[in-house]
């Protein structure tokens, strides 16, 4: 039997398996949330989120999988830990957000932000070099995110880049780690099991 919920968006399907998966991945007692809104009140990113954290938690409780996973909330989340620190019920909200990102990526839902691309580029640098190659990260992300076509931001960052370069703050060559092969294996093994 499929449970449906009548919301402002019409009839929506409730998926209890989704709620369970989020709870298991995040080791969080989501059922404890009683909507006190402490999380959203202190959230520095809430003003840009499709749903503030307390609403997202409610939707996860209800199993509104599509609405949750297609929202930008967990991509915007800064992992600043303010919500989890203040939650009176000790819900690990940041771990819930991590779990949602993992599930979204597993299901190939990239959402409306460029943040999955940022994380992938960042980790690619670590996989290739063992450390973050900052100049490489900036250049690759700027090109592939399409930011290279946004003139105003590009000019601002180009000016900043030159200033940083002049101050010796941007290493031209990538960093080196001797155990590069070992790092690559860590990536391969964790992605199999993660």
């Amino acid at each position: 039997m499929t449970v449906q919920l009548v919301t402002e968006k019409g009839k929506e399907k409730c998926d209890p398996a989704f709620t369970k998966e989020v709870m298991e991945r995040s080791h969080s007692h989501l059922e404890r949330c009683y909507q006190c809104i402490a999380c959203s009140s202190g959230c520095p990113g809430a003003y840009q989120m499709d749903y503030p954290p307390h609403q997202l938690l409610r939707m996860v409780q209800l199993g509104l999988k599509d609405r949750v996973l297609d929202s930008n909330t967990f991509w915007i989340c800064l992992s600043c830990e303010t919500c989890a620190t203040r939650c009176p019920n000790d819900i690990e909200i940041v771990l819930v957000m991590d779990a949602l990102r993992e599930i979204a990526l597993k299901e190939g839902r990239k959402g409306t932000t460029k943040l999955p691309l940022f994380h992938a580029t960042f980790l690619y640098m670590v996989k290739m070099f063992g450390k973050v190659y900052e100049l490489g990260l900036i250049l690759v992300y700027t090109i592939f995110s399409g930011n290279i076509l946004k003139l105003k931001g590009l000019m601002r960052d180009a000016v900043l880049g030159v200033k940083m370069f002049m101050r010796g703050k941007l290493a031209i060559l990538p960093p080196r780690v001797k155990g590069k092969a070992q790092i690559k294996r860590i990536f391969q093994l964790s992605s199999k099991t993660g």
Partner: protein
Amino acid sequence: MAKIKYGYYPGCSLESTAKEYDLSMHVTAKLLDVELAELHDWNCCGASSGHCTNYELSLALPARNLAIAEKAGLNVAVACAACYLRFKQTNHDLKKNDTLRQKVESLIEMPYKGNVEVKHLLEVFAKEVGLEEIKKRVKKPLKGLKLAAYYGCYLVRPPDVTQFDDPEQPMLMDNLLAALGAEPVEYTHKVECCGGSLLLGRVDIVQKLVDDICQAALDAGAQAIVTACPLCMANLDTRQSKTKVPVIHFSELTGLALGAEPKQYNVWLKKHINSPAPILKAKGLI
């Protein structure tokens, strides 16, 4: 006082965008007789992108560094607040779950028993060397300098993992600055987020958060903001759109007060986008 020695983990930023943090850290540690032995062949901790997308990876990357330290028989002193939390979180999670610890050992192909203690260098200086000892060693008190101590997120949160200080009203950095002779100001944004991992992905959000923090510091009468994290520094120093508050690492100020040479601190100070040199000059400190 017994010699303090740590395995030093600078983190990726300290090799490029936060070079001045690394340089000043070494000088300051030396002035305080703290020996920093850089961890052999360390790697990136995975930062936000690691834990955001792959939990096991987010434990394995720091664990490789911790295993290197364990093999060398050293505890770890971390310079970056973000790396600090990743290390602390790894220890925290592995201590709770031995199956997970063994899993991570198999990922990194190295033994790690979980016995390495992790400290931030702010803790090493202010708690371990101690404020009394630092006071005794101050050669150039930072007199008349009003400073906003900025902690950001990962030193203080999650509090059960970092166990650094009070998560809402930390005082460790304020007390250090006071010991150096400066006047730490009370302000509203000392643990607000700077935008951290959105630094490239959502510059608009970073800019707003940075502007709020800088304005709060100015409103409280601060002449500069002090950080203990290379990412907070990068965001605060480069993304201010309405203010021009100089931002300076705690290690630079500590080194300056303890008598670092001009040829040392001039190199650090030249690397900032909003230079702290004018205010330091006005106070007769450089």
